[in-house]
């Protein structure tokens, strides 16, 4: 029996194999949205937990396990943004860019963080994936289960809100 079929039948060894194959990819995807290593690790576990819970609904004949996991991971990350709204600033555990002095960069990050808080979690996730991580629109659309044009609409909406908020704070893109 193939790995996906064994997983769908509830085989824990098959689940472990899939976990080991995909954990890095799921983690990196979630990092693009939540931008915090500890949270991303926790949400990676939550993604695989949801996958495990739904094993009976997985159809191995149609199955693209990677795409399914990416969809679950996106939902998990957006759920997190929704719950953590106004609580989690853009984290500092990522390497700083060397283009600006630290103090100025910190102030800019802080303004951007505040502006990002104005975005809904779904728009925020799309803005981060499309503009910061430069993921292709097609890839984002598939992960969110929406059309490419809907992704573009969310990018436009996000950019408009960011421009307005940043301009009010004296930051002019």
């Amino acid at each position, binding site marked *: 029996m193939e790995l996906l079929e064994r997983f769908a039948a509830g085989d824990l060894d098959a689940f*472990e194999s899939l*976990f*080991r194959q995909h*954990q*890095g990819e799921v*983690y*990196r995807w979630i*990092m*693009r949205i939540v*931008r915090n*290593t500890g949270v*991303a*690790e926790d949400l*990676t*576990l939550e993604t*695989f*937990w949801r996958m*495990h819970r739904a094993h009976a609904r997985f159809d191995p004949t149609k199955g693209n396990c990677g795409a399914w996991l990416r969809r679950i991971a996106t939902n998990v990350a957006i759920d997190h943004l929704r719950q953590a709204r106004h609580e989690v600033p*853009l984290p500092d555990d*990522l*390497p*700083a*860019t060397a*283009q*600006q002095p630290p103090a100025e*960069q910190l102030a*800019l*990050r802080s303004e*951007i963080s505040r502006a990002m808080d104005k975005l809904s979690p779904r728009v925020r996730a799309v*803005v*981060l994936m499309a*503009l*910061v*991580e*430069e993921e292709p629109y097609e890839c984002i659309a598939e992960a969110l289960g929406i059309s490419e044009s809907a992704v573009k609409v969310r*990018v*436009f909406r996000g*950019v*408009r809100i*960011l*421009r307005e908020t*940043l301009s009010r704070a004296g*930051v002019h*893109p």
Partner: protein
Amino acid sequence: MKEPEIEDVKKLLKDALPATKDSELRHDLWPAMLQRLDQRTIRVPWWDWALLAGLAAALFFFPGIIPALLYQL
């Protein structure tokens, strides 16, 4: 909105926020996953089983209480 306006915001965001594409998982998460699977397995306490057994026995020996229970539902 025009493309250059999007590009301006994109440049600003990219200057302030480093991309995370190179972020790698620092350790294997499988042990933590196993722990979570164990924790989330539903464990029914023994007294719940005892209560269920008592209810089943009551229904078996005193079937007259079934309409009363249904009425309460």
